């Protein structure tokens, strides 16, 4: 019987089968940030087991609240920083070099097709864009990962989602994944892996793929996997050029992680991209989606562009395309957080930061802060935000606030109009 991508990765990393369909896997990387890791570090110290399984396989960043906003967040950063120094963890990213983990770590070349990765962060599924098995875990799994380099997972039953046809103008990766979640629901892929495929997916950049895999967890999925191809290899090439003679050789090696033609899927769902339109969420679940056209006119107080979903260079370009030569509404607070220093620098070089500033946006340093209501753009009770993030949960960006999830282009158009607006109005 053929195998799916995740089944092949599980086979290649198998350590133990403690019971039933549980597999303990060897980990290629353990990613850490300052919100969920300090408790694991303190617990390891308390147990007299303050060790790491392999400092080179641990990557750590301070990204959720940075620069620290108060004594508590300063302490969280300090615990992570001291730990990274104490264990000589070479890849630790602090102020000046730090950015949103799921944008920064791919940019640094820490993800490869076929890897197994965990992090104490649900959006770790993002790294599936590279053909890796990457999953969010809690602090205890993270702690064991740090100490032993292993994690337990149930056998990865897989759903295949095919996106066919052509994307209409004004429709982006964000609209595709919002449409998918709207269709299958927030529980639609719970405990399963999703493989994304089809011509629309194959034509997407790595940035667009990461937008889609990032939100796989909003449908409950463990990981959202894309097949490694020339786009994957081209993105990784600066980091792997010493490992392979040519891009073709890298591609050939990575293609061992393509699914077999007779792989078994729990379900296959096909979406016709030609029928998709720009989408926005309403209510408090990511499955509550409607075409922007039906939400048009909803007033907003804040527009946020950033996060591990949509804070990459391509996202900033799409927003800048809409904003160029325009001013945002006086009734709107516009905030943009380039996801990494690399994205920020690129946006400066391309004149995108100037476009944002001329339009009236506040440009912040790279951080997760606003997305989960921790810093840099928290909403007041009763306020409404159009946001390029991934969660519209009640209270997510601030107690009593309402979040409408949209693409960067829709967010930019909404900032100009002061109400939810389709970007095609401004984009020719």
């Amino acid at each position: 019987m053929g195998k799916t991508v995740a089944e092949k990765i599980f086979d290649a990393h198998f350590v133990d089968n403690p019971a039933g369909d549980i597999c303990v896997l060897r980990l290629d990387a353990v990613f850490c940030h300052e919100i969920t890791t300090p408790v694991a570090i303190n617990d390891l110290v308390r147990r007299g087991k303050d060790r790491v399984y392999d400092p080179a396989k641990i990557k750590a960043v301070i990204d959720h609240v940075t620069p620290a906003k108060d004594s508590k967040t300063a302490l969280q950063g300090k615990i992570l920083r001291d730990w990274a120094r104490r264990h000589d963890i070479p890849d630790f990213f602090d102020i000046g070099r730090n950015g949103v983990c799921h944008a920064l770590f791919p940019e640094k070349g820490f993800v490869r097709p076929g890897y197994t990765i965990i992090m104490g962060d649900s959006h770790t599924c993002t790294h599936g864009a590279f053909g890796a098995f990457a999953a969010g875990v809690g602090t205890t799994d993270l702690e064991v990962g740090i100490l032993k380099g292993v994690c337990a997972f149930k056998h990865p039953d897989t759903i295949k989602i095919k996106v066919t046809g052509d994307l209409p103008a004004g429709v982006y990766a964000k609209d595709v994944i919002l449409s998918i979640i709207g269709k299958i629901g927030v529980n639609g892929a719970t405990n399963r892996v999703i493989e994304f495929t089809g011509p629309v997916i194959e034509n997407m950049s790595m940035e667009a793929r990461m937008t889609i895999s990032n939100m796989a967890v909003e449908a409950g999925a463990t990981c959202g996997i894309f097949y490694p191809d020339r786009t994957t290899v081209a993105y990784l090439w600066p980091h792997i050029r010493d490992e392979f003679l040519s891009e073709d050789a890298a591609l050939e090696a990575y293609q061992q992680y393509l699914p077999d033609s007779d792989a078994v899927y729990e379900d296959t769902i096909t979406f016709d991209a030609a029928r998709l339109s720009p989408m926005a969420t309403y209510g408090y679940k990511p499955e509550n989606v409607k075409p922007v056209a039906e939400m048009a006119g909803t007033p907003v107080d804040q527009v946020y562009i950033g996060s591990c979903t949509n804070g990459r260079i391509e996202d900033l370009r799409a927003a800048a395309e809409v904003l160029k030569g325009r001013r945002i509404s006086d009734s709107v607070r516009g905030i943009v957080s380039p996801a990494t220093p690399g994205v920020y620098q690129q946006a400066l070089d391309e004149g995108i930061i100037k476009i944002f500033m001329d339009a009236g946006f506040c440009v912040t340093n790279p951080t997760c802060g606003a997305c989960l209501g921790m810093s840099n753009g928290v909403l007041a009770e009763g306020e409404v935000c159009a946001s390029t993030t991934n969660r519209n949960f009640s209270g997510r960006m601030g107690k009593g606030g309402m979040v409408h999830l949209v693409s960067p282009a829709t967010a930019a158009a909404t900032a100009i109009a002061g109400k939810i607006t389709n970007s095609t109005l401004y984009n020719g």
Partner: protein
Amino acid sequence: MTDFSGRVLFLDRSDINTDEIIPARYLTEITKEALKPHLLEDLNLDGFNPERDIQGTSVIITRSNFGCGSSREHAPWALEVNGIDLVIAESFARIFRQNMYNCGMMAVELEKEAINRLFAEFSEKETAISTDLAANRFKVSADGETAEFSFSISDFDRALIEAGGWVEYADAHY
């Protein structure tokens, strides 16, 4: 090991996420105890008042996909410090469910019919559950009325409970 028994808090909604169980603004705490007053503070559920309804309960019964969203283990911790170590639901989000067993707590799935029956017959009453872990059985009682429900948990989940959590288990095995 705890006894996974006591008074029940009924939460009649699906898809209760971990932001609702413990909001992100409290993730800057580095002790579990500090989370105690904030459990379910942002829960979007008519008629629910966390200050009035949580006190004295040890078990939650709810609908499907409980614990979806953020991976924060602060959610099980916030339950634990409030004395709640068992959640019974139609289904759970993967990470939350794993976090519960990793902490030596229990997240038990029952069939939709059983959950419907629990809500229909008990949710309006002062209800208590007593768990017989060896027999895989819950005894539910309210106003002198009792009902029994059998459940199953995997051998791995049971091993984690018996070990006291995943750190202890992994340390002994790997």
